[in-house]
């Protein structure tokens, strides 16, 4: 999860080609290094977070580019290449590095950089030198950026940078994350890239010879391996213990969801109060009936209903960023590698699934690091089952109707416990689905090596957390103001058409003076209602009525639209207290007429339905791009719908029997 993701499910920008055209003629530096060499940190420090995200043309590997100034105000382009351990690609994103470095320009889709910054992690030099030896064959100017020298010194390792640089034949600049001095030196060094020294004889290419070369270079540099980090090893002996570690992992996740509920609740209250105030403002100042209705129902009721969950989304990403920043998330991935192996998948797949906690899109894109095509597909099919941030508003809304805020399970908030269970169930389902897909699609293939570096435990950097949270929150806001707003407006129109004349209303026995009654009548007999009622046979066994059906249909655009739709319907029925209106909604007809619509069995069915259904067009789109055909998204959509429907019915039946 190196780069901050576009959380909340925003689709990616495909403008790789456009970016290249604008940067024509500028000097290009490419940053190369293994995963966890501090590449992204350096890239962000150099370009100041003004990175453009796009895709490499023709493939779906994300491309990160930024600009910076060096020397006499020369603007240069810095490109952050995907992390790789060698130039013998085993996965699509490693292939990109090879293509970019192809100086013969066999691959005209990508620009060859003018100079390279090769990152070497000072604590794992021996392995990193193999990559450097390969990169040096390109003949491009190279400057080595030595990272984690602070870590090396702390763990009693040693390296004579001047001697090391002489042995490599290229400039070496140590840069410690969070310290400006190294960056300044690097900036100056970059300005003189045309006169960077090159090795008098390039390193060998044969792997055995490269080993001898690396050994010789390290001896000349007086390299002393860092000791095992005692503090890290002590923590790891507990955290990575199969039994204790798993318990700690589950406890951490449990507290995670407790925090999201208990801390965010008051903040959510403020946002709600803000929208109530906006609603009053609309009612007081806008006297055009349709506009007032539009603003109070579609904007305040619909969009406001989704925006209420901003505190939870922000908190979710703050917590994820903290877990990642402390180095715990990498341990969790390592721990889960064992579990994943049971499912026939490897640790890399867990990283992809973990990314899906934010949003399935970065999760699906993260499958690019999987060398095996079968593993990629199995993981891709499973990723949308992980509980993404878009499900959060739906879950919170439904759980809040189901359980009062003061409900407790032991010392914990009952709402938090249910949320944890939902996340856990989502994750377990994802693993099971991955295992099933893997079983059906694979004959036994070779298990490819999986490197995962354990970053040292540390206090997370505030700036990094802020950046990740900002990316996620702004993506959520963008989504709310684009796809969710559009879907909400369309729904508002469908919910309020056809227009009814007063005569028609009177004939139906509606008091034309009672605005709420009129609104309720119009909605109950709208186009949307007709659609909702048309699909009733499909969803009636789950206890859904036409209002929920519209919500479900509209949530195909994005899951949060479900909340917006219910918000609209509720705002029409009870403009003062839309939240109250939801709990008071009654079944309108049939044998259960008059019973609460949102009773426990229906809520259980809805929660389970949302857990399994693929209600996200962005995910479907990304899946098509990543798998290269409509076949896999079609399979995913169908299997998930069937799973959602069957399990929702099961949940309804079980909960109905219990209550």
């Amino acid at each position: 999860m190196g780069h901050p993701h576009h959380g909340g499910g925003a689709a990616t920008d495909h403008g790789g080609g456009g970016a290249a055209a604008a940067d024509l003629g500028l000097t290009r530096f490419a940053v190369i290094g293994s995963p966890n060499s501090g590449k992204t940190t350096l890239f962000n420090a150099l370009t100041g977070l003004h990175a453009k995200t796009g895709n490499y043309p023709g493939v779906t590997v994300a491309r990160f580019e930024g600009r910076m100034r060096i020397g006499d105000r020369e603007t240069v382009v810095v490109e952050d290449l995907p992390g790789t351990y060698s130039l013998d690609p085993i996965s699509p994103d490693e292939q990109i590095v090879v293509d970019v470095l192809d100086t013969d320009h066999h691959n005209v889709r990508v620009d060859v950089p003018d100079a390279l910054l090769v990152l070497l992690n000072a604590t794992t030099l021996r392995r990193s030198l193999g990559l450097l030896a390969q990169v040096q064959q390109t003949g491009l100017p190279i400057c080595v950026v030595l990272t984690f020298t602070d870590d090396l010194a702390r763990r009693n390792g040693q390296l004579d940078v001047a001697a090391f640089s002489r042995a490599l034949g290229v400039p070496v600049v140590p840069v410690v994350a969070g310290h400006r001095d190294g960056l300044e030196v690097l900036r100056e060094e970059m300005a003189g890239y045309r006169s960077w020294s090159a090795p008098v004889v390039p390193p060998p290419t044969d792997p055995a010879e490269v080993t001898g070369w690396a050994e010789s270079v390290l001896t000349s540099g007086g390299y002393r391996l860092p000791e095992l980090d005692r503090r890290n090893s002590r923590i790891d002996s507990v955290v990575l213990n199969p039994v204790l570690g798993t318990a700690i992992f589950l406890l951490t996740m449990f507290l995670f969801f407790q925090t999201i509920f208990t801390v965010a609740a008051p903040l959510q209250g403020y946002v709600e109060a803000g929208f109530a105030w906006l609603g009053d403002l609309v009612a007081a100042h806008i006297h055009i009936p349709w506009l007032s209705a539009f603003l109070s129902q579609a904007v305040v009721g619909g969009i406001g209903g989704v925006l209420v969950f901003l505190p939870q989304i922000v908190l979710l990403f703050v917590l994820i960023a903290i877990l990642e920043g402390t180095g715990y998330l990498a341990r969790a991935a390592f721990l889960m590698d064992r579990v994943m192996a049971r499912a026939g998948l490897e640790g890399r797949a867990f990283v992809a699934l973990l990314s899906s906690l934010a949003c399935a899109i970065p999760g699906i894109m993260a499958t690019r690091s999987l060398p095996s095509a079968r593993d990629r597909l199995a993981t891709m099919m499973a990723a949308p089952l992980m509980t993404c941030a878009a499900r959060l508003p739906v879950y919170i809304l439904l759980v809040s109707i189901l359980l009062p805020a003061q409900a407790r399970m032991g010392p914990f908030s009952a709402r938090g416990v249910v949320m944890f269970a939902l996340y856990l169930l989502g994750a377990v389902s994802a693993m099971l689905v991955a295992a099933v897909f893997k079983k059906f699609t694979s004959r036994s293939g070779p298990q490819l090596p999986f490197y995962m570096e354990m970053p040292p435990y540390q206090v997370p950097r505030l700036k990094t957390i802020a950046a990740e949270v900002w990316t996620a929150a702004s993506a959520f806001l963008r989504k709310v103001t684009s796809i969710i707003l559009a879907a909400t407006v369309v729904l508002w129109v469908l919910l309020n058409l056809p227009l009814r004349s007063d005569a028609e209303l009177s004939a139906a026995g509606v008091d034309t003076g009672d605005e709420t009654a009129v609104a309720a009548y119009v909605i109950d007999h709208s186009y949307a209602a007709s659609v909702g009622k048309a699909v009733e046979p499909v969803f009636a066994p789950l206890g859904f009525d036409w209002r929920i059906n519209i919500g479900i249909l509209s949530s195909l655009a994005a899951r949060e639209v479900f909340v917006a739709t219910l918000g609209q319907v509720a705002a029409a029925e009870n403009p003062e207290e839309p939240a109250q209106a939801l709990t008071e909604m009654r079944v309108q007809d049939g044998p259960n007429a008059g019973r609460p619509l949102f009773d426990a069995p229906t809520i259980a069915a809805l929660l389970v339905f949302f857990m399994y259904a693929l209600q996200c067009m962005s995910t479907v789109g990304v899946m098509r791009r990543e798998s290269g055909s409509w076949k896999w998204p079609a399979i995913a959509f169908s299997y998930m719908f069937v799973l959602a429907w069957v399990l929702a019915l099961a949940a309804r039946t079980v909960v109905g029997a219990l209550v």
Partner: protein
Amino acid sequence: MTAPVIVLHAERVADPHAVRWVVPAGSLPVGRVRRAPGRLGELFADGTLAAGLVEGTAVWLWLREDLAWTGHGTAVQAALREALAEPDEWSIEAAPGEVLHLVTSDLLDGTVGDFIRSHGGSVSARRVGDDEVVVQLGGACEHCPAAGHTLRLRLMDELRRRCPGLTEVDRDGTQLTLSLGPVAT
């Protein structure tokens, strides 16, 4: 059986015709290369390589003056790698004065010299007789009480590593006379 890993890398030196091939200490006897095995021997024979000298931690090879390392480096590297796998097939004659002068000059061209020059001093090394090398400090160093100390501290440690058998014949303020003891061939 897998071939032994040959630990080797190339370093640039002040002389553009030479490359200093760093090898583990004790790989070969110190001295002038008279004959080398295999392809390296052929490169000497056909005149591609003009000369070779072995110091404590490196093999120095000189290309013929009209050739460049860019074109020949990779071939020489491969040949040297093979030759290093057969240390007994080399013929190397003792050349203590030559080796000592080469290594001392190399250090004075590099980090040690840089340090002295950064303090406003100057330094040079010359051969005296067959076996001795005199290192002379000048410039700002002439009146510096720490000059002798600097020479010993900065120069001698590295020199000892690269020239086994180094002895200090005489020390007189800013002048240091060095010699290499008899080296077993």
